[in-house]
C-alpha cells in the first residue's frame, strides 16, 4: 500500500464565471517523491497549487495534504506545508537571517528555536556567508534560494514550489536543483510546477502534464516519452516549415508537427533509420532545402507537442544542453 500524501479529487475552479482554470482535475502522489506539474502558461498549474496550499477555495472538489482536508481544515494543513510562490516573497530591507527568523516565529517557534532553524536552513541553501546582508543586495538567484529557505523553515511534510527557477540564470538553476534533490533525499515530498521540460525531466519522479485545467497525461519521463512511440525525426529548416510539412504529408510517412519557435518540423520515426531515409527521399524529391535532418530520442518537448499540439515556452537553457538536444 503506497502512502498517498497529496490527493486532489475532481477539483473545479472558475474565474469570473467563465474561465475554467481547473476543469475537474484529479491528482495524487505518494510520500517522498518529486511530482512535477508540467504545462504552458495559463494551464492551471498555479491555481492548483493555490488550492492545495489553502490560498484558494475551489468551486468544487476535495483535496487532502498529509491526511488533512485543506478545504475544511486550512489551518491544520498550513502546519504541514511550505510554499514558495513565483515571486521571491522575501523582504529586501531585512537580512536573510531576519527573514527566516520572522517566518520561524510565525510558525510559532520560540525566538531561540527560530534562530537555530534559520542557521540550519541557511547552511542548507549555502547562504550562510550572505546571511547578515540585506536581501536587496542579493542576486535574483540568491533571493529565490532564500525564498525556498523560508518555505522549509517550518519543516513541512510537503513543499510546493511554483516555477522555482523561472527567470534565474542557468548556474543558479543548477544550484537550486541540487538543493531540491537534497530536500527530497531528506524525506520531504515535493510538488513543483514548471514550464521547462528539462527541469521536469531532471527532477521529477513523476510528471503530470496539465493543459486547460485538465490533467492530460501522467507518468515517469520515460513512460511519457514512450507514448510518443520510439524515435523522432527532426528537420531544421528556415522559413519553409509549411512546405516541409506538406511534402512529408504527401509522402504519407506520418503526421508532422511544426514548432515555429524553434523552426523545426518533427515526425515520429516508427521504423527508425528506414523512416529517416524515406523522409530524406521525399524532401529531396520535392526540392526543399533543409538545414539539418536527424534521428533522435524523443524529448518531453515531443511529448508535449504530441499531447497538446503546441510547443511549450522556449526553454532558456544553457548552451551545453542546447547542444545536447540537437545532437
Amino acid at each position, binding site marked *: 500500500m503506497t502512502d498517498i500524501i497529496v490527493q486532489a479529487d475532481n477539483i473545479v475552479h472558475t474565474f469570473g464565471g467563465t474561465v475554467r482554470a481547473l476543469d475537474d482535475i484529479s491528482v495524487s502522489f505518494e510520500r517522498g517523491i518529486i511530482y512535477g506539474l508540467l504545462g504552458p502558461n495559463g494551464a492551471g498549474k498555479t491555481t492548483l497549487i493555490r488550492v492545495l496550499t489553502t490560498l484558494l477555495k475551489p468551486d468544487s472538489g476535495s483535496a487532502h495534504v498529509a491526511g488533512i482536508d485543506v478545504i475544511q481544515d486550512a489551518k491544520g494543513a498550513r502546519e504541514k506545508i511550505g510554499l514558495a510562490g513565483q*515571486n521571491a516573497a522575501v523582504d529586501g*530591507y531585512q537580512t536573510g537571517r531576519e527573514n527566516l527568523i520572522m*517566518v520561524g516565529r*510565525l510558525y510559532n517557534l520560540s525566538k531561540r528555536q527560530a534562530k537555530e532553524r534559520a542557521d540550519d536552513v541557511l547552511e542548507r541553501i549555502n547562504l550562510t556567508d550572505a546571511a547578515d546582508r540585506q536581501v536587496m543586495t542579493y542576486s535574483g538567484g540568491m533571493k529565490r534560494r532564500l525564498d525556498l529557505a523560508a518555505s522549509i523553515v*517550518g519543516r513541512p511534510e510537503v513543499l510546493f514550489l511554483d516555477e522555482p527557477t523561472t527567470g534565474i540564470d542557468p548556474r543558479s538553476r543548477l544550484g537550486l536543483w541540487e538543493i531540491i534533490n537534497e530536500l527530497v533525499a531528506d524525506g520531504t515530498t515535493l510538488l513543483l510546477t514548471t514550464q521547462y521540460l528539462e527541469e521536469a525531466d531532471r527532477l521529477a519522479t513523476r510528471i503530470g502534464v496539465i493543459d486547460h485545467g485538465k490533467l492530460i497525461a501522467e507518468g515517469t519521463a520515460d513512460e511519457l516519452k514512450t507514448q510518443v512511440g520510439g524515435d523522432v525525426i527532426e528537420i531544421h529548416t528556415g522559413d519553409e516549415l509549411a512546405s516541409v510539412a506538406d511534402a512529408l504529408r504527401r509522402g504519407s510517412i506520418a503526421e508532422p508537427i511544426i514548432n515555429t519557435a524553434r523552426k523545426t518540423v518533427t515526425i515520429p520515426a516508427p521504423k527508425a533509420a528506414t523512416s529517416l531515409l524515406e523522409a530524406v527521399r521525399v524532401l529531396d524529391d520535392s526540392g526543399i532545402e533543409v538545414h539539418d535532418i536527424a534521428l533522435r530520442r524523443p524529448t518531453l518537448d515531443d511529448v508535449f507537442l504530441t499531447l497538446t499540439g503546441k510547443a511549450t515556452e522556449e526553454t532558456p537553457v544553457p548552451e551545453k544542453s542546447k547542444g545536447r538536444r540537437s545532437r
Partner: protein
Amino acid sequence: MTTLTQTASHIGIITRRNLLRNIRLPQLLLFSTVQPVMFLLLFNYVFGGSIARSIPPIFGDYINYLLPGIIVQNVVFAATATAVGLTEDLQAGVIDRFRSLPMARSAVLAGRTFADVGRAAFVISLMTAVGYLIGFRPLNGFFSLVLAVVLALGFGYSMSWVMAWVGLKVKTPEAAQSAGFLPIFPLVFASSVFVPTSTMPSWLASFAENQPVTVLANTARALILGDAYIAGEPHLAASGATIGSLVLLSLAWIIGIVAVAAPFAVRSYRKTVE
C-alpha cells in the same frame, strides 16, 4: 487553534516587520517626514499672514491655531501608507507567503495598521517639535497636548482601516496612492484644519462643521488651546460644546469608522487573497 498570546505575538512580529522597513530604508522615513514639516512651514509662513486675520487673536500666532489642525491632517494623509503598503505586499507575493503559514489571519491587517500609526506618531512628534521652534505653545498644559495627539493617532488608526479596504480593492500601489487621496482631499481641506469654517460659504460650512476631520481638529485645538477656543468659534459656542463633549464625539467617530471599515477590509482581504 491560535491562542490569544500567539495572535498577539504574530501581530507584534508583523508590526515590527513593517516598522523596520521605515528604519532600514531611511529615504522612506526622510520623505514621509519632510513633507509634513514642509506643509507646516508653508502654511504658517505663506498663508499664515492672511489667515491670522480671520481667527480670534486670543490664540497668539497662527502657528498655535495651525499645529493642532495639521496634526490631524497629517494622521489622515499618513493613513494612505496602509493602502500602499498592503498592495505592495500583495504584489510581492508576501501576503501569499503569510497566508500559507499557520499564523493568525488577523495579524497581517492589524500589524499593518499598527505599524502605520507608529510611524505617524514619530512624524507628529517631530512636527510638534518643529512647531515649538517656530513659536507654537500649548496653552492648556502638557497632558492635554498628549491627549490631543493620542486622539489624533486614534483617528489615524481608524482611517488606516478605511485605507486598508481601499488598497485591497484597487490592488496596485499606484492606484492605491491616488485612490487613497481622493476622499482625503475634500475631507482635509473642507474642514477647520487650516482655516475657521466661518469663512466658508454656508453650504460648505455646514458640511465642514459636521465631518470627522473637523471634529478631530476642533477637539485637538480645544485640548491644546483650552476653553477659549470653543468660546471663540461661534458654531462650537452655539452648540454648547465642551472639551469633554468634543473628546467623546471624537471617540465616537473613531470607533464608528473602525466598526464600519474593519469588516469591509477583512472581507476584502479574504476575497482578494482567494
